[in-house]
């Protein structure tokens, strides 16, 4: 990618003054929070401001920036530091499979362009010949048109159909048949027979069929490739979530900034409030709250003091701490999650799509029919030329055009219907896998619940107390504090920040008030006694000894219970798998009507739980949102994510749904099952048309016009059937599972 991008960078856009006679080096950065055009401009400007940077170009789709710089004046670390001053977390991109994949997609797109150009022109000529056959076109003009078609089609097919030839050759070498074998055979035979017939001045010319087939099949191939690239790109950008620069305290007390990947176990790292923890390690001094939402999916911070284990990628919320590294870079939890995901995705790659399963039956049948036609006509004594022409006609009639369209057409209709309901289907084979699931596993925080705590006992708290508490809470990033502020604003109260608020890590907030202090925080800290009876609460002391308790809960999504019971009614087994504390998980499970639940599950535990269900022969649909769910989402048979999920989870999921409601899950499953059923219907249509036309082809009555008509008619029939899916009313309970 380096080369290609450098040439892009030379274009207009972002050129800084050249430094004469200097060397140049290209650095590729992952920029995490670059979401809009303004960010893009800010990032480019900031990078151009670094001495030695010649060009900087941000790529919004890939969340990356490519920088050409003079290595003697600058390096990647200074670029990262510059961006972090602007408020962007950046990391050096790790170039791996990404480049090769992007090249392959470009390559397919190039072939697609050539095939599209060729098929449009060849069709132009073919239609003229067909029209001419009915009117006054003479033989010499038809022959000229055939030659022109040959000149356009043959080089285009030789170039554009290479992916199919390559895949067919690989399959044959491995002694098996895939759909590319009859495709390649059909295309090659049709082209060479057409050339032969063109030389002879006959009418059996199939260049149009051959090039159109190539074009349509390439479209499918390209879309598949795009989906795969997107998934892999996100896995690599995940590495950018790690804290990438660390402040290390040497043995002599000297402080030094260095890249996180250079850290060694045993080093002492200083982590300021608001910074991400760069290593897995143990706190040696300081007390703070750690936001682990990235790792566990839970919104509540965890209290950490000397001796506590903390993980790379978590956020230090309240006060600076010194951490001794125990594991670094490649052995951190986050790197482990990235690896788990990659492994899980490879496992899923073995899924055989419906179209491929059909082709395993279909491909041998096509070959047998073609060969039988050839042998039959030879035996009757028609001569090799007629026999081969008829066999070619059989191959073209049976060419999997309708078959290749049968599934994609339904899937396009299904995805557009789902898109209208706020569900974005991402994996090409996602709908098929969704249709075959029989077990649904939910994550709790952010999936079954809204993911943010709300004030539960608002009725017991007066406006005056709430607005007082909120004036303290507004200074804090703690989720409970935010919930207090939200509750106050929801009542229409004006929240004004109090003077002199102090945040005491792990305890709460305090502000001076006349003689005493106002306090908002944990029970032990505010009242001096810890009954631990109400863990999910804040206590408020107004400075005059009046103490109010504020209780919170992570509220269920509004229709969670309805959706769970609908799933159960449709025959799904439903369970809950959460990284949160048992009490909270049990309460959510009971409220949603889920009987099977487990709490305090780590990411690898989630994978293990899903593998266990798999071993029982279950096909699991995982619904989750956190980074900790990402490996499980990738490991499950199929997966869904809400659109509030972390990037990486959305990428791992087969489909993403929007909004506060869980009802899209039901719609997605119903549409997926309908898709499966209609795909089978479409196979039926394609086969029915073969039953009519294959005997004609075997009998030698098929002309190029009949072949083209039959091909188009079957394709139209299949597409029209698929479009019905957009309007039909579906209910999950009435859709039986098909495998």
């Amino acid at each position: 990618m380096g080369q290609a991008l450098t040439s892009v960078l030379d274009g207009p856009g972002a050129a800084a003054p050249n430094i004469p006679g200097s060397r140049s080096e290209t650095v590729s950065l992952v920029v995490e929070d670059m979401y809009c055009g303004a960010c893009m401009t800010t990032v480019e400007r900031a990078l151009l401001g670094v001495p030695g940077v010649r060009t900087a170009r941000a790529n919004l789709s890939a969340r990356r920036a490519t920088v050409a710089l003079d290595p003697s004046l600058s390096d990647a670390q200074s670029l990262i530091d510059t961006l972090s001053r602007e408020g962007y977390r950046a990391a050096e991109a790790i170039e791996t499979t990404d480049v090769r994949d992007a090249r392959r997609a470009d390559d397919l797109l190039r072939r697609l362009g050539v095939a599209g150009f060729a098929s449009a022109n060849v069709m132009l000529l073919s239609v003229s010949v067909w029209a001419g056959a009915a009117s006054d076109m003479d033989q010499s003009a038809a022959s000229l048109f055939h030659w022109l078609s040959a000149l356009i089609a043959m080089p285009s097919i030789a170039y554009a159909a290479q992916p199919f030839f390559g895949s067919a050759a690989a399959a044959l070498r491995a002694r098996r048949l895939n759909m590319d074998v009859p495709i390649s055979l059909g295309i090659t035979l049709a082209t060479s027979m057409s050339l032969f017939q063109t030389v002879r001045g006959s009418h059996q010319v199939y260049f149009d069929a051959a090039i159109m087939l190539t074009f349509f099949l390439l479209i499918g191939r390209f879309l598949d490739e795009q989906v795969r690239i997107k998934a892999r790109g996100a896995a690599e950008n995940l590495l950018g979530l790690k804290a990438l620069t660390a402040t290390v305290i040497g043995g002599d007390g000297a402080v030094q900034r260095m890249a996180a990947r250079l850290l060694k176990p045993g080093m002492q790292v200083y982590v300021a409030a608001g910074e991400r923890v760069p290593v897995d390690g143990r706190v040696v001094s300081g007390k703070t709250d750690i936001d682990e939402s990235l790792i566990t999916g839970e919104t509540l911070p965890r209290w950490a003091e000397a001796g506590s284990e903390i993980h790379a990628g978590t956020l230090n919320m309240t006060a600076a701490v010194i951490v001794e590294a125990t594991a670094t870079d490649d052995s951190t939890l986050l790197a482990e999650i990235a690896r788990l995901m990659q492994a899980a995705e490879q496992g899923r790659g073995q899924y055989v799509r419906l179209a491929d399963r059909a082709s395993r039956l279909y491909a041998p049948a096509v070959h047998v029919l073609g060969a039988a036609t050839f042998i039959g006509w030879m035996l009757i004594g028609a001569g090799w030329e007629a026999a081969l022409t008829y066999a070619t006609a059989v191959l073209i009639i049976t060419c999997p055009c309708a078959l290749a369209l049968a599934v994609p057409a339904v899937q396009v209709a299904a995805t557009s219907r789902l898109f209208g309901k706020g569900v974005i289907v991402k994996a090409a084979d996602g709908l098929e896998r969704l249709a075959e699931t029989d077990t649904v596993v939910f994550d709790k925080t952010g999936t079954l619940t809204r993911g943010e705590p709300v004030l539960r006992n608002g009725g017991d708290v007066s406006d005056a107390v709430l607005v007082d508490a909120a004036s303290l809470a507004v200074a804090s990033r703690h989720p409970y504090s935010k919930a207090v502020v939200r509750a106050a604003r929801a009542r229409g109260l004006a929240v004004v920040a109090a003077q002199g608020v102090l945040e005491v890590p792990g305890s709460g907030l305090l502000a001076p008030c006349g003689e005493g202090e106002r306090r908002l925080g944990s029970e032990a800290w505010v009242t001096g006694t810890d009954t631990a009876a109400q863990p999910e609460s804040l206590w408020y002391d107004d400075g005059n000894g009046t103490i109010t308790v504020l209780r919170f809960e992570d509220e269920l999504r509004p229709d969670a219970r309805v959706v769970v019971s609908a799933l159960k009614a449709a025959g799904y087994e439903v369970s809950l798998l959460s990284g949160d504390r048992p009490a909270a998980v049990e309460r959510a499970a009971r409220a949603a009507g889920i009987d099977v639940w487990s709490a305090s599950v780590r990411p690898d535990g989630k994978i293990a739980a899903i593998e266990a269900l798999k071993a029982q022969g279950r096909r699991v649909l995982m619904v989750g949102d956190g980074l900790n769910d990402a490996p499980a989402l990738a490991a499950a048979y199929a997966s869904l994510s809400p659109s509030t999920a972390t990037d990486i989870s959305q990428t791992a999921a087969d489909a993403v749904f929007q909004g506060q409601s869980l009802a899209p899950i039901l719609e997605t499953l119903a549409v997926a099952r309908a898709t499966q059923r209609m795909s089978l219907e479409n196979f039926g249509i394609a086969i029915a048309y073969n039953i009519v036309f294959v005997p004609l082809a075997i009998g030698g009555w098929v002309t190029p016009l009949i072949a083209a008509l039959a091909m188009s008619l079957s394709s139209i029939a299949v597409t029209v059937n698929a479009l019905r899916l957009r309007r039909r009313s579906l209910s999950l309970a009435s859709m039986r599972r098909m495998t």
Partner: protein
Amino acid sequence: MSALAWLIPCALVLGGAGLAAFLWALNSGQFEDLEGAGWRAIQDDAEERKPPNAG
């Protein structure tokens, strides 16, 4: 029939021009950042602004 002598080359040249434009766009990276390209069109002064401290 003589119209064919120039109509067919015309069709081929036009089609070929389209193909050439597509291949040029692909090779020069026009499809690399589909999201960002839309934003760049509405940025005001991204080009003119001098970097503050470039050497």
